[in-house]
């Protein structure tokens, strides 16, 4: 009996010790994540602007009402969705092709992989400036290359559709290598025996790709797509540098709009509201995506 009590005491003391060890982390989390999150939620219910020193006023859901009837918000939402819906599939397909090619060992393959990482390592602001030069309609190398195919110079950043295409091109250039590297890691983790078994069964290369490689890469795809969804909803600096959201508001994204309303117009209440809505959108999309992928996986199993 006494031994059992001693065991319980030991267990309790171990739990206490574990809690004590977790405490600094919890405090940091509360201070840096939970605290600002609660503050952001609270601000979203306030009419609060720094343009005047008026005291903040509690306004229930007024900011939300105003936001959902604001065409500029829906335009930014649509732009973010376009980048997501067009960008992610294009980048995923390109990355898969490149990853499959790089997975074949050839002389200098490691150097190629290392070089491939450069766009990801470049600061988004620098990438924005680089692409601004590349896309210049008079001196830009892209129009120069296109001229060999008989394409007249395009004003990439001056026409709404072309400006959005420019954002997509730049995003694809910068993030395809990241997706490639993640998929390459996934490919490297697939055991050779699986391919050997598939070969023994007489599978063609296409069948191996669809029935072996792709299902085994699914966790990596899930991870990388989720990360890209989050990154795309936060996209700000390259858009700000490349187009500033223009022409008009044709390339204004949710991240850029949040910045403009919060840090240019100093409308703290409304910028908090957009941030909350953005958080909800990302959470819902991510949840839907994970559920979809997991259901499929369970169905297949």
């Amino acid at each position, binding site marked *: 009996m006494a031994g059992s009590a001693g065991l319980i005491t030991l267990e309790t003391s171990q739990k206490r010790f574990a809690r004590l060890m977790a405490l600094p982390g919890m405090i940091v989390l509360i201070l840096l994540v939970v605290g600002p999150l609660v503050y952001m939620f609270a601000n979203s219910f306030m009419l609060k602007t720094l343009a005047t020193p008026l005291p903040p006023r509690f306004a229930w859901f007024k900011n939300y009402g105003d936001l959902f009837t604001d065409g500029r918000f829906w335009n930014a939402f649509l732009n973010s969705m376009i980048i997501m819906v067009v960008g992610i599939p294009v980048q995923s397909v390109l990355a898969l092709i490149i990853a499959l090619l790089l997975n074949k060992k050839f002389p200098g393959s490691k150097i190629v992989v290392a070089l491939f990482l450069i766009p990801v390592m470049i600061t988004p602001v620098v990438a924005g400036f680089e692409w601004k030069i590349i896309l210049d309609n008079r001196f830009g190398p892209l129009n120069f290359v296109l001229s060999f195919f008989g394409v007249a110079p395009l004003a990439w950043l001056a026409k709404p559709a072309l400006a959005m295409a420019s954002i997509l091109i730049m995003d694809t250039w910068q993030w395809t290598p990241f997706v490639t590297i993640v998929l390459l890691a996934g490919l490297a983790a697939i055991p050779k025996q699986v391919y050997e078994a598939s070969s023994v069964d007489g599978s063609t290369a296409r069948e191996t790709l669809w029935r072996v490689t792709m299902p085994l890469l699914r966790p990596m795809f899930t991870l990388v797509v989720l990360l890209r969804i989050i990154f795309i909803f936060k996209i700000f600096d390259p858009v700000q540098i490349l187009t500033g959201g223009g*022409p*008009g508001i044709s390339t204004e994204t949710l991240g850029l709009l949040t910045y403009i309303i919060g840090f*240019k*117009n*100093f409308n703290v209440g409304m910028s908090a509201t957009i941030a909350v809505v953005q958080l909800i959108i990302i959470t819902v999309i991510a949840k839907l995506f994970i559920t979809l992928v997991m259901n499929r996986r369970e169905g297949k199993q």
Partner: protein
Amino acid sequence: MQGKKTFVFICLAVLMIVAQTSFAQAKVTITVYGDEGQNLTPVEWLKPLAAEKGITLETVGVPFTSVYEKLKTEFVGGTGAYDVVIFYPDYLGEFAEFGYLQPLDGLFSVHDPNMADVVPAYRDLYTMYNGKTYALPYDGDILNLYYVKDIFTNAAEKAAFKAKFGQELAVPRTWDDLSKVAQFFTRKKGDKLAGKVLDQDYYGFAFLGARGFAYAWWANIFGSLGGAWFDRNMKPQINSAAGVNALKIQKSLMAFCPPDVMSMGYQELMNAYLQGRVATMIQWSDVWKKANDPKLSKIVHNAGISQVPGVKQADGSIYFRAAAPVGRIIGIPTTTKHPKEAFWVASMLSNDESIKAVTSNDTGEDPYRISHMNNIKAFEKFGTAAEAKNYLDTVKDNLNHVFPDVNIPGSAEYLDALDVAVTSALSGSGDPAAALNTAAASWDKITQSLDVNRQKKIYNSMLEMWKKHGFWKD
């Protein structure tokens, strides 16, 4: 007794001398805030002179389009990081009303800024608030019409223009004239212009279409059509008939602009003109100086400058208004610990050193003083005496017909909403009337979110100043 009196007298004299020279001998650091690059160059030039006064000058530069947000953040935080702030007059009402800036009238005795020498409309509308001086002028930014001179005097072009439009080819004075001229000079590569075969497409007109200050190019037309930002009761007037017509006129001019006009900022627009790609354009005053620099320009001594076009009135006169986006001014924050030294720096930059700044291509500063306008000699390094005189007279004309930005609290938000409407409609993604209605609705919301009565009071005092200069009739 006599000895005692002498001792007291000597003590008083020493005290007076010490008091008089204490400012000169003080060792203080003055931090100057402004948009980085060429516009802080005059501060660099002032450093040796300031050092002689015991003042160490430090500069903090921020991007051109971020002046408001960085400064506002500092003001709200009340950090007192800056002693002298160079910013745009759009924010004067907000900064002065909320006590971020100190009135300067009481500091004039430190070093006379010679405000009587400043072009009156510019001084009253851009440096004063509620009857007090809150800022000193630093950059007389005003928009002007530029044109390439020789194509307007070419005999063949003149004859062709007359044949096409039944009137003489001349520098446009009205928007209608500008439209005709822009249409006439828009040519394809391989066509002839003033007898020379074009090796690239040539365009009749260009304006600044990139987000940020694009609204000002619309405001030129809006102002000349009699537009005002609000009525006396703070009802937005940007979506009035004048506003919609102005946007339609600007949109119609796009047919004669380079295809990348909607992504043209200051540099791109200036380059289009300096590199001989456009016949006319509207830009800030410093472009004339740069146009006459062979290192930068292909149109040296061929750059004409004129008043921004206006609208013909029933009596035959033309109503001109020139927008004045940016236009830097210098203020002293209430948080500075060295207001006298800060004012000395501001006054030196605004007055004593200003002629050097406005006559250099190493800065972006433009003339704003009557003494600048009368100093033709100082501008002769950019052209002949006649060209310099024409330049200065034109800048003065445009400054005297300034259409000032809305400079009441919340102006950054008002102007952003307007800029979005203008650029959206111009880039084809919005109907002019609908775009301006959306902007007007946003303006109403902004006004409601601020203190409506205070906004009304401030705006009405601005209108009174407009009235004084003949820019407003009740």
